[in-house]
């Protein structure tokens, strides 16, 4: 493949200085690495101002604090317009509150999100709560890499409308509603929105997940990376054993 034929993945890294809770920049590093390994270029736009649309293949939202999401939601119309020129939106963790219809909070006023996901969120009680644990999900049954591992930090419970397609099945950890353990569903796929509670960072610990999402945008990319993923596969095996013994 010569340089002129190299595909380009344009990524809008959304509010990198504000959506930063769980090592989220690792996801952008993982996309860069995947580009090096599979032969595509990654154009990375740091987005702090949404007043002017910047077309992109992918907009990536890291995990953020509810106070920050409240502030971002206040400028919701500009953000909605900005995202109209993006092909796919990937959202990690609590930041989905920015995309639901409403988020109710415990001691702070609630806020309205963009409504791009037919769902409502409720902040979980904040005293004496444990929000996180290991997380194992099945997102691509029947494929060579059906499972992804990481952690979750679930400070909100999300109820999606009937018919909204989940992103994955929960094998270990809490489901979207924070009511079911080791069963139920994680995240959602709705229109161009992909949401998961998988942190870790998700693309670092599960490069096969990152590849599948990139290939949805760029088409199939030749290249066998199984040998490159030695550490990640060993990590997944170790985590599965660890979780099984919990």
């Amino acid at each position: 493949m010569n340089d002129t034929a190299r595909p380009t993945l344009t990524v809008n890294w959304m509010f990198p200085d504000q959506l930063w809770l769980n090592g989220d920049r690792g996801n952008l590093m993982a996309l860069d690495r995947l580009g090096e390994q599979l032969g595509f270029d990654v154009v990375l736009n740091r987005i702090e101002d949404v007043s002017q649309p910047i077309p992109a293949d992918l907009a990536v939202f890291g995990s953020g604090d509810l106070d920050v999401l409240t502030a971002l939601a206040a400028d919701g119309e500009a953000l909605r317009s900005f995202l109209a020129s993006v092909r796919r939106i990937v959202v990690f963790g609590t930041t989905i509150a920015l995309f639901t219809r409403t988020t109710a909070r415990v001691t702070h006023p609630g806020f309205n999100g963009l409504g791009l996901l037919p769902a409502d969120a409720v902040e979980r009680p904040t005293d004496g709560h444990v929000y996180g644990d290991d997380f194992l999900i099945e997102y691509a049954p029947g494929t060579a890499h059906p499972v992804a591992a990481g952690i979750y930090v679930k400070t909100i419970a999300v109820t999606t409308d009937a018919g909204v397609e989940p992103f994955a099945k929960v094998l270990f950890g809490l489901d979207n509603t924070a009511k079911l353990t080791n069963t139920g569903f994680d995240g959602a796929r709705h229109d161009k929105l992909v949401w998961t509670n998988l942190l870790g960072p998700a693309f670092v610990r599960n490069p096969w997940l990152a590849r599948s999402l990139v290939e949805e945008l760029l088409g199939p990319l030749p290249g066998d990376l199984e040998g490159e993923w030695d550490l990640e596969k060993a990590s997944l095996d170790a985590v599965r054993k660890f979780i099984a013994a919990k």
Partner: protein
Amino acid sequence: MSARDAFAFLVGKAALTGLRAIGRPGYHIPGALAYRISPSVLQYIRKPAEVVFITGTNGKSTTTSLVQQVLAASGKKVAYNTESNNQPGIVASLLRYTSVFNRSKADVLVLEVAEEALSKIVPVIHPQHLLLTNVQKDVPQVNQSPNYIRDRISEIITADMALIVNNDDPDVSSIGAKWQNVRSYGIARNPYTLEPETGRYAIARPCPVCSGKLVFDSLNMPSIGRFHCTKCGFASKPVPDYQADGFDLEAGTITIGGRDFPMHYKAAHFAYDYLLAYAYATELGISAEVIARAFDSFVNIQGRLEDIATAGKTVHYARFKQETPDTLALAIENIRRDPKPKTVIAALNIVENAWGPATANTAYGFDVDFSRLADANVEKFLCVGHVVAYDTANILRYAGVPREKLVVLDTDDPAEIAKLLRAETSKDVYLLTWLHHYQDIRKAMSNE
């Protein structure tokens, strides 16, 4: 106040006396026992008239020890906590400084209090002074985010408390901005000051006031330095009430108000602890001479920073707190400061804490600029840790460390790690891990 409280108190005192008689330390046991019998025993035990709390994510223990040392040097009888910083730990500390007739034997109570314990403790023990170190990312499964921790501190403050706040920490500074009776402290730009990251993946942080983008103009520690918000203009004061002009890690001094004070613990983050102790002591009217004398004789609690000579090499302990990325970044800077060739044993380990499940979380490693180690003359990285060793190695690979420099071992067995340490051919080995794991490894080394 109930008979149950009195009984709990007496049982705690008896346990303390018994443990002392058999020469056993472990002062937390009487506290845990008394607290278990009656949680309101904390209210029952009489306290000294003067009370100061020290809270924040990092630096509490060292600052508490420093404050205790300075107050003692000024002639006061000081009660303070040496064990845990939650309710049973505080009960344990009070038992030590109270007579069997429940009379306080101390003039001042100096308590390190965990942020999440403040709301339970302040209604029972009301401090006149509240000393705030910093607010950083810390155990997200429990604390969510720095905002959550900041709220836990803010909600217990009352107008009668005198606050001493870190001017270089955005969250702490934002707490101070809401109150009148506040003194601030900070460190001026100095030769150890770091410039903020500027690379492709550089991140700053959200503003604690408006949630906009906050940037650091310079950093004395990770996430601590002179800052301003690009949206609302919230910023550190140009000159705080108490300012260290600088410090010299070689000479072991910190310069405050033009005077050099001893600072024998040679890492940049200790400078804030010394400065906070200085500020509080000065507020109480303690002279610079007394403070200097106390700093000079100060011995920190074990394990904060130490070297061990063993098998022809030096093992340097690089401490960090799990899931507290700024402490990991600090430890990396301390390793980086040594120009000699070295091996680094990175033992991130399964995250364990008292509140939640053990978790294979290494996400916080991506909040840290590990590339600072990639060019720090490290000849080999041994990534050890049950389950997480592979993820640790991956973090280093992302940071630019070649795969051939990475050795991965899926173990957290202290004996195995001690063996590895002894077998290392490098003259300098840095052990990057959390305190309890280090203590276990050190014990295993001494058993060999």
